[in-house]
């Protein structure tokens, strides 16, 4: 009896488990190790606080930023100023880039006109065209939005054009055989099939928008995360610089996650056909 129990027990009990690293755990560990390294570097004086302030000091800076603010604005005011610019730019670039992408994909002449323009602005670094935009449009809010929007137009237009081409020939022919005009095919078949691709383009464009933010707020801004970082950098207030970087990164992360949710909800059919 006891022999039998012994023989059965290992199989019936929980399987022997080695420590298995899940992706989530790996992420958590990476963050923890980096934070610990930072803590050690500051606590043991490996690096000067001017280069890398103590984590506690950065935390305190967040508190100060939220309540009292820095250079005439609280963290919330700086963040909303930047968010306003990025999303105004996004709205305008979607309004322009989606039709541009549709034209590139459906009209050879349109493609001949617009494709080189898109390819011209696509690789330009924002700091290169910033001076020109300030000369042309002044130092007001429109220039800042325009700088960001210019970085967003190309990825959305290219993604839209690629998405339109993802409609199959028979899907297009089916609509034609049911009497759809060229515009009807575009609106009822090609635009919906391009939606997943357009959403991907918007995700890439938002990334480009955030990376353009600091350049856009370089000249004559009085609010904004990019402005806040630059002001702090001029006076070597490193803790504010670091908070600014973290806040931009956190905002970008949140909106990326939101867009992925939108994707999962609205284009569930994507890739399943």
């Amino acid at each position: 009896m006891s022999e039998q129990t012994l023989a059965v027990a290992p199989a019936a009990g929980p399987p022997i488990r080695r420590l298995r690293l899940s992706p989530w755990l790996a992420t958590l560990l990476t963050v923890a190790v980096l934070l610990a390294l930072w803590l050690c570097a500051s606590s043991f004086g490996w690096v000067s606080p001017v280069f890398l302030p103590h984590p506690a000091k950065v935390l305190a800076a967040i508190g100060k930023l939220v309540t009292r603010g820095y250079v005439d604005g609280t963290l919330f005011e700086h963040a909303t100023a930047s968010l306003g610019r990025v999303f105004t730019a996004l709205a305008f670039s979607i309004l322009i880039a989606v039709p541009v992408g549709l034209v590139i994909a459906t009209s050879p002449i349109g493609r001949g006109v617009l494709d080189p323009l898109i390819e011209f602005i696509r690789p330009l670094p924002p700091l290169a065209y910033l001076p020109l935009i300030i000369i042309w449009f002044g130092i007001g809010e429109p220039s800042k939005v325009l700088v960001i929007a210019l970085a967003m137009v190309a990825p959305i237009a290219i993604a839209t054009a690629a998405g339109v081409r993802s409609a199959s020939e028979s899907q297009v022919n089916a609509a034609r055989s049911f009497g759809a005009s060229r515009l009807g095919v575009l609106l009822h078949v090609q635009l919906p099939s391009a939606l997943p691709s357009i959403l991907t383009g918007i995700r890439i464009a938002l990334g480009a928008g955030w990376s353009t933010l600091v350049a856009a707020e370089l000249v004559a801004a009085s609010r904004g995360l990019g402005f806040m970082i630059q002001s702090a950098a001029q006076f070597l207030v490193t803790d504010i610089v670091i908070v600014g970087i973290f806040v931009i990164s956190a905002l970008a992360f949140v909106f990326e996650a939101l867009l992925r949710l939108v994707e999962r909800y609205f284009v569930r059919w994507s890739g399943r056909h």
Partner: protein
Amino acid sequence: MTELRLTNVSLSYARRPGFGAAGPATSVLDHVSLGLAPGEFVAVIGRSGSGKTSLLNLAAGFIAPTEGRVTRGSQPITGPGADRAVVFQDDALYPWLSARDNVAFPLRLAGVSRTERRERAGALLHQVGLEREADRAIWELSGGQRQRVGIARALAAKPDFLLMDEPLGALDAMTRERMQELLLEVWRASGAGVLLITHSVDEALFLGTRVIVLAPHPGRIVLDRSFDFSRRFATGETARALKAAPEFIAAREDLIAAIHADEGVAA
């Protein structure tokens, strides 16, 4: 209703520049004439490269012939039209729409009101046995169910002609047999003229009131004969019994011989 007719139609593609020296144009169809009357079921069969799909694309108006004419009565066909609905091999459904909205798509293009669209799409889905799947997403349906949605969508336009490009080609054998019977029911109920492209000799014989055999390189008609198996099925004979009948088997041998005639191989 008037007949859909291809008269002395040839189709050839010029060699693309950039692939070596400009050779002669590739001839896909060579002087093909074919009429499709309303209520008729024409099955077209032939080896790969015999221009079966090109024939259907010409009838649908997706492409224009290099030579010859495609006409509806006295009217030349210059493009696709709602009088000739197409069912595609890859179903060509819209995955962002439900089964019902796919079927209602031609009605939406025709400006039919929303309530009437829903009603008619529901009735058509019932006709193809999919009433319970009406609100499912396309990617939740099986291959056979998707083809049935495609057939219901084609019927929604109330076409005079149904042009079907190997609609059952991707289905398993069991589903395929059931779908053949469904095609006959749909054909009888709609009264439309059907042009069916198929790879299966049995399918062509069982469904077609007329079977056309195309030979390849270039595509041309080598046999055009009438059969009555589909009418006999309509009068109550079972599919099993028909396909086992001696005259069915003899006809099948004839067709296979015609398909392979130019190969010099006894099939």
